[in-house]
């Protein structure tokens, strides 16, 4: 629902807030009912409210996102701030808890005086957080939450700050394969995917595009996340002798499946696995047999976008190591919101301003560390993941051509 310019809570929320205030009256001094009476940002600063899983299941990626947000804020402040004002981050810990994340955003908007909000981490937390943002009419840009359900909730304020949703991760590879002459193109493909919406989305996105173009699916196996023995799945793939193998994988499943395939002497022309190959542990786990393995990636420090080079330099100086995907997506979120703020020339919680921020992102392209981004009406980014491939033991960008560090190896060398 739309709210008045004074950002008054809805009646239901007033009830909750009032109860909470009575309960907390002796503890919290500034618990005003008008919303944001306590610590509202002054005219000289822009307050950005964020809730992140700093403890609990998602604490590792949560802290990565925090580093990314903080680096972006420092960089922005060092370079003159937003609209000439300094930005200040208010970060709460939602303990990876979906109930907590909603109340965190209520608190950020009502009590912490947030002028803008950034999204939390992971699909499970993004959906409840986006609901609160929607209720208050806030722009909601989020760094994680690529699964379909995020975009099927009818949010009109949500934007995913990454190049592509799971189904589109392999788009560049699919285009490349379909552009090959008919007689060189792989004719059969084998798919093995973890029973997980994200991992499956990546492999099925590619499968559906290739199947529509006539690449026959000869194996299509789904395994539960706890599977550790992949020899039987590998046996089926090896027996089918498919021209290409695609794994909708996370980490250990890809490693075990690849080793099992090698043990069976299976030699495909193309081997693509999501997530695992971009993990620094991967080459150590597979040994010297990684060459030719392909993986989509949402971010790599090597990407040649000018924004990215600045980001990598700034981040590396600050933290002593290059940024990872979580950190980059957080930074991207900052860039996207900043572009909207500068485009709409406002950064306050009023529905008019928030709506003009949303409208700006609907109509404009934003240059980010993961390349130029635009979104569809549900907030799905319309770009594509880079395709990386192991060449001489190093993971290199091979697609798109303008970003490529090495030529795409096809057919891949024997493993």
């Amino acid at each position, binding site marked *: 629902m739309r709210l008045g310019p004074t950002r008054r809570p809805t009646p239901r929320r007033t009830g909750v807030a009032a109860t909470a205030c009575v309960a907390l009256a002796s503890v919290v001094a500034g618990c005003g009912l008008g919303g944001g009476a306590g610590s509202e940002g002054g005219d000289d600063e822009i307050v950005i409210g964020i809730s992140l899983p700093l403890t609990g299941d998602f604490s590792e990626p949560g802290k990565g996102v925090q580093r990314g947000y903080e680096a972006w804020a420092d960089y922005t402040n060092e370079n003159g701030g937003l609209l000439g004002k300094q930005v200040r981050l208010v970060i709460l810990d939602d303990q990876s808890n979906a109930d907590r994340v909603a109340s965190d955003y209520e608190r950020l908007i009502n009590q912490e005086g947030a002028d803008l909000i950034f999204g939390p981490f992971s699909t499970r937390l993004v959906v409840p957080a986006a609901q609160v943002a929607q209720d208050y009419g806030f722009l909601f840009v989020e760094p994680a939450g690529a699964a379909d359900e995020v975009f099927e909730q009818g949010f009109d304020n949500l934007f995913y700050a990454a190049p592509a949703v799971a189904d589109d991760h392999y788009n560049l590879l699919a285009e490349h394969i379909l552009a090959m002459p008919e007689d060189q193109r792989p004719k059969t493909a084998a798919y093995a995917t973890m*029973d997980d919406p994200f991992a499956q989305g990546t492999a099925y996105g590619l499968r559906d595009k290739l199947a529509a173009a006539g690449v026959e699916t000869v194996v299509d*196996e*789904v*395994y*539960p996340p*706890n*599977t*550790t*023995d992949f*020899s*039987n*799945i590998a*046996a*089926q793939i*090896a*027996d089918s002798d498919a021209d290409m193998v695609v794994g909708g994988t996370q*980490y*250990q499943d890809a*490693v*075990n499946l690849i*080793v*099992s395939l*090698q*043990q*069976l*002497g299976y030699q495909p022309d193309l081997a693509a696995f999501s997530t695992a190959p971009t993990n620094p*542990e991967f080459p*150590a*786990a*597979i*040994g010297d*047999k990684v060459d030719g393995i392909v993986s989509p990636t949402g971010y790599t420090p090597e990407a040649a976008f000018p924004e990215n080079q600045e980001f990598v330099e700034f981040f590396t100086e600050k933290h002593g190591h290059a940024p990872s995907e979580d950190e980059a997506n957080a930074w991207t979120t900052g860039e996207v919101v900043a572009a909207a703020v500068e485009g709409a020339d406002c950064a306050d919680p009023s529905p008019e301003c928030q709506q003009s921020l949303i409208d700006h992102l609907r109509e404009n392209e934003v240059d980010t560390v993961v390349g130029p981004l635009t979104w569809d009406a549900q907030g799905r980014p319309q770009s594509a993941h880079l395709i990386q491939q192991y060449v001489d033991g190093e993971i290199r960008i091979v697609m798109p051509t303008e970003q490529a560090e090495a030529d795409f190896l096809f057919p891949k060398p024997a*493993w």
Partner: protein
Amino acid sequence: MSASLLLQTLVLGVLLGGLYALLAAGLTLYFGVMRVVMIAHSAFLILAAYLAWFFHRETGLDPLLSLVVTVPLFFVVGYLLQRGLISRLRPATLTMMSVLLTFAIALTIEGLLGFFFTGTQRRINLGYSGSSVEVFGAHIAVVKLIAFALAAAALVALFALLKLTRFGQALRATIQHPEAARLLGVNTDRIAGFGFGLGLATAAIGGTALALDSTIYPSLHWHWIGPLMAIIVVGGLGSIPGAAIAALLLGVGQSLLQIPMGTTWAQTVFYIALFATLLVRPQGFFGGRLAQRF
């Protein structure tokens, strides 16, 4: 299903069954000797796998050499565990309370592994990890063959120990009738401790075999304990040959069923076999009278 896939699957099933057989042998031994349900057996398995991985990482030597340390170490730990903790449980509630006690031990091991080695998934990368030998068109991975050979050798040694030595006789006597064994002068307390140590030593061998060809992480043991428990019930509690035969049959069954049913449903073969056994023949298909008392 083509003939070559069938053959390949059978081979993989037998290799997997061999590892199951060794692990189940240890588990059934505890129960045979002491009526102890040892939930922590697979946690010790993963501990041994971690020790093999750690040994390989630190020294660069073949992880199989870690057996020289882990097998005696686990034997001693098993003996101490039995004498120090498990023998103190009241005999009347032993089976029940041993579940709780060993559950706690399993959680402790898992927690400590996570503390020292983090939850990151580890894998030993050997020069021969991806190598295989070809027999009649079926590929047999070298690491799986080594694991199977280790398991088979350990099982044969265990069987010979039980059948041919005086200690084995005493242990079997303790399994069959503890009171009668005591009357004949067998020190059943000490024998039970040794039996427990022996069971844990099989976990050391099994864990090293596992580490050769699998990624390991601290909570992996929950994945193993269910199938192993099912195997020893199907095989007949306390019967080592029964456990070995049931392990091979179920390992091959799981492998074969994976082709028509997929990985998710093939896992249920253990539990279906467990339910069927309890319905039709609660004492197990290969075991003796032992289980009838429970």
